[in-house]
């Protein structure tokens, strides 16, 4: 057996989670083709996700390359940092599949649910690869895999004109963005002669000043990543697609694919541009490109434009779309610190963001199921008609704002502290001001829920027990983690091992 092929077979045990995802993807497809029973599909999917979760936990401590080439670097980096985000992606996938069982919006497409779950698994596979990939080509393929699946999912309600419009806009914008990214990758390939991030790192060491070609390349590549995490100015698709797509998919895009994009960005910076780390965990960067300055500007733009645009929205889903843009801005601010502590902020933030954002979307789904609307003015007085929903929504929104004692506060706190520690006070202050602005539109939802009088006579709306339980499962941790979050921090710190320097 030739040497590379031996590497290939040696690496198979490292990609068990990915293999499991592919396996279940095929299983779902075959089951759907043969039995045509929609009922069991979500449970098979959930089973598959749980199995994958176990596989990830089993290989949690690994810290090595899969698919090594003749140089000592490989195409995928299997490390605890990646495992952490794979777990986040899996958790959000599990929650989104539960959403999909509940959502009445998807009822018109119940006979096509086999394809729905297959595509979701395709997305998961793509996101796993985005999280682990350390080769630009693999990264590009992973991004495309996620994109292609999500284009279709965004337009899954194909008889709904809004949903199809969303998918058209998504594919045009996504196609251009990933095309630009590919062009950037091609130039980077021209500079270094390799697509492997770690090899590039050693080749780039001799850049001792910023280089206009690197600036061009990195901005072009960032166009693809920025489009995935909807960072301004690559965010324009976000509000339209989020508003048009089915709520379940909007929720999924806003958490899981954003997480994958963020990891991709971190890995790109960390593996390619860090020459060494100082004792406090700050990264010394190869000066070819001023990542810090770039990220600071992008993060300020992202959080500010996200928040200010959210102020005027009347559609709750669209408002949450802008709010998720703003949150991406906070996370980018933490990355801009370029230190391990910034990463702690990112990781803590993501766990909490998962809880609060998916919670808010769950409430949107529940309300949409009951009153068939996402417009803010139709929410008037709902807080009294559905007390639990009102209370839970309040918790999620307060958490999204970042006010104690909710978990959202903890997330913001760690980002904030990382900024203060790195003496990036201006950015810290801008972030605080942005939080204040965000309070305004989150409270606006609460005002509609509680203070506005509904237009017509209304009655109480009953929820099923399982739904109530589901809401509580998402709402209670938002309070608990706000008060006691040592476990999160522990988990984050043990996961803070990125392959490489």
């Amino acid at each position: 057996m030739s040497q590379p092929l031996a590497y290939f077979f040696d690496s198979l045990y490292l990609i068990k989670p990915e293999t499991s995802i592919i396996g279940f993807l095929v299983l779902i497809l075959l089951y759907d083709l043969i039995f045509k029973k929609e009922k069991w599909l979500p449970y098979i999917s959930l089973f598959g996700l749980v199995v994958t979760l176990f596989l990830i936990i089993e290989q949690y401590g690994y810290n090595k390359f899969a698919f090594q080439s003749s140089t000592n670097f490989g195409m995928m980096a299997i490390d605890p940092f990646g495992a952490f985000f794979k777990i986040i992606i899996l958790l959000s996938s599990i929650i989104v599949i539960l959403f999909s069982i509940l959502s009445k919006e998807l009822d018109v497409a119940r006979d096509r649910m086999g394809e729905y779950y297959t595509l979701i698994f395709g997305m998961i596979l793509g996101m796993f690869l985005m999280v682990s990939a350390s080769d630009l080509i693999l990264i590009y393929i992973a991004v495309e895999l996620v994109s292609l699946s999500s284009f279709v999912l965004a337009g899954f309600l194909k008889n709904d004109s809004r949903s199809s419009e969303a998918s058209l806009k998504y594919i045009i914008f996504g196609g251009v963005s990933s095309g630009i990214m590919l062009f950037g990758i091609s130039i980077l390939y021209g500079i270094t002669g390799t697509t492997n991030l770690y090899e590039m790192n050693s080749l780039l060491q001799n850049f001792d000043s910023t280089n206009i070609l690197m600036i061009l390349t990195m901005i072009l590549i960032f166009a693809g990543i920025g489009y995935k995490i909807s960072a301004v100015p690559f965010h324009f698709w976000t509000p339209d697609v989020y508003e048009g797509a089915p709520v379940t998919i909007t929720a999924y895009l806003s958490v899981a694919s954003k997480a994958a994009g963020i990891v991709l960005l971190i890995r790109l910076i960390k593996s390619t541009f860090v020459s060494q780390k100082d004792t406090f965990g700050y990264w010394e960067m190869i000066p070819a490109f001023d990542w810090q300055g770039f990220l600071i500007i992008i993060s300020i733009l992202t959080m500010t434009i996200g928040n200010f645009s959210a102020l005027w929205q009347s559609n709750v889903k669209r408002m949450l779309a802008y709010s998720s843009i703003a949150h991406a801005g906070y996370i980018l601010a933490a990355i801009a610190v370029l230190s391990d502590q910034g990463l702690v902020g990112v990781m803590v933030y993501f766990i909490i963001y998962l809880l609060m954002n998916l919670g808010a979307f769950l409430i949107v789904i529940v309300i949409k199921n009951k009153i068939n609307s996402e417009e803010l003015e139709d929410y008037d007085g709902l807080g009294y008609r559905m007390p639990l929903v009102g209370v839970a929504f309040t918790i999620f929104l307060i958490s999204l704002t970042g006010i104690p004692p909710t978990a959202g506060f903890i997330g913001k706190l760690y980002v904030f502290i990382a900024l203060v520690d790195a003496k990036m006070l201006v950015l810290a202050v801008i972030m605080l001001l942005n939080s204040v602005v965000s309070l305004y539109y989150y409270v606006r939802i609460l005002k509609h829920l509680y203070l506005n009088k509904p237009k017509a006579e209304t009655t109480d709306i009953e929820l099923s027990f399982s739904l109530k339980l589901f809401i509580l499962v998402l709402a209670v941790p938002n309070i608990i983690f706000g008060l006691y979050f040592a476990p999160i921090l522990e988990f984050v710190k043990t996961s803070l091992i990125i392959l490489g320097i």
Partner: protein
Amino acid sequence: MSEYNYTLLALLVFFLPLLGFLVTILLGKKFSKIYLFEVAIITIVLILSIVIGFFKLGFQVDERIISQFTWIDLKSAGTPYTSFIIELGIVLDNISVIMLFVVSLVSTLVHYFSIAYMKGDPRFNRYFAYLGLFTFSMMGIVLTHNFLMMYIFWELVGVSSYLLIGFWYEKDSASDAAKKAFLANRVGDLGMLAGLLILFTTYHTFTIDNVFGQIALGVLPFNSEFWLTIMGVLLFCGAIGKSAQLPLHVWLPDAMEGPTPVSALIHAATMVAAGVYLVTRIFPLFTGDALLFIAVVGALSALIPATIALTQNDIKKVLAYSTISQLGYMIMALGIGSYFYGYFHLITHAFFKAGLFLAAGSVIHAMHHEQDIQNMGGLRKKLPITYATFLVFCLAISGVPLTSGFLSKDGILAGALAFGSLTGHYLITVVGFTVAMLTAFYMFRLLILTFHGKPKDKHAYDHAHESPALMTVPLIILAVLSFFAFYSFNPTTAEKGWVFEKWIQTPESVVPESARYSFMVPESEIRDRKIIHSETYTKTVHDAHIPAVILSLLLSGFGILVAFTIYYWKKISADKIANSLKPLYKFSLNKWYFDELYDKTFIAFTMFLSKILNWFDAKIIDGVVNGAASVTRGFSKISGGFDTIVIDGFVNFSAFFSGLVGIVLRKMQTGKVQVYIVLLIFSIVILIFYFSR
């Protein structure tokens, strides 16, 4: 018991009321009997706190059990520069254990009392849920070992008392009173918050013990003793609000609009005592000047409400003013360094004042919600048990020997006398004794007008009947607790009392010696023994004891005698006195015109500002900010006048600004995907140019 067991029990005591609240409020609509769950929970809490108290005070009297966990630890985030740690936790020491017992006992009795008193109320279950919430928040204040939780539960107590005062919100007076209480407390809390900010920026911790430790090491805010004083005074502002001290006392009399058992629980025994408790908790960090300030506030709050109480005719209002006055007493005692008696009076007063309120509740219940004592009289025969207990409470509050009130009040007066002779602030001493006399007078005036003489309202009198056992048994329990034997074997002094001698020790002040009262600086050089007060002080207090006893007995005896002369034997006509002292009488009857004063100044000023704001709102930014204004109107509905200015102004401004930004941003989001791509290309070009400068 091991530390673990203590913690477990304390946590149960802490969180069970919360469980009671949640269950009762969530299931209240479905199960009409769910209030029994809350009652059961509170009974368990009482039993548990008795168990804690028994083991702690009986066997581990000298230990302080602290269980805490690190809430936010920014050191462990790997950060080299910042280091602060916020810990949350509970402390079980003697004062918190005793307070735990007092709170849970009074709360339990009030729960049982309320079952009978609130019978037939449409929101019966909700009432019990609120009681549970209140008990939970009070437990938080009692158990916390840090300022952060203290502040959070401080606010939570404010919220639950708001809910309870405004329980009958259909009555405008009740919802107004609730708002007034909330606002007055907010003003005090603002001061406290400022104090906390100073504290946290200086010490980077909220844990009370750590703060003390750092002060003892000489770390002062802004490196000056003056700022330490300011910090202490600001923290004390919280107590001014909660304990209804002057000048924020105006809410307490109005709060009598709430159900009477609530008044017994919140406005006599627990919440208002929280302010006093706060001062005892953080006593070591007060400088001499801060303590003097506290003493003066306490003295004024003892005196002025006492003079108001002389002329009031609403049974609950009299008790309310007497509560303010007694709280002033405690605050004054702490201010003059008489820590032990200040805390002791808190305990004894909690029992007999709760008893007085419950007895008043029993009377009101019997008289079908008649509260004016001029329409009562002669109820002694109709309500024998209520009368007997009321009499015991009156004796206790007047400081008649053999009662608990005598022990505590006497100690305070001795301390005041000693304080006067050591520092020359004799006015405080004079106030102390005057208030003792006034208290005896107005309490017996109340007793006689209510229970003696001829019934004034024949109809109501005929229908009056003794309350059921659910109401009388709590009264009897409280009356029993008003006797001396529970606190000391010696009926004349608590100083050698078997209980308090061992249990409560004045904590050593941590402020620099130069900033303390001179008598709180130990004279002897023996440092291995804890010496808190100078020897002169100990000696002076000891010497002051006998004169104080005699003087106070004479004065309260005189007060009682006058009350009997005027109202029982009718030797002197009350109207005649009122006529001859008309200005003074009117001054007292109208509560020193405090409310009017506030109306004319603060409220008028606020209204003026909001008028300007309204004009501004209507003329200038109305178009842009309609949405904003209605949100803030929602806010201001809750928090009234003060907030209107702050929040409205801020939100209006920000809405205006963000409106401008929003218009630009909306222009970009046209819905045409090709426009987005053009923008994308332009942004990429701009970014490239920007970074290749």
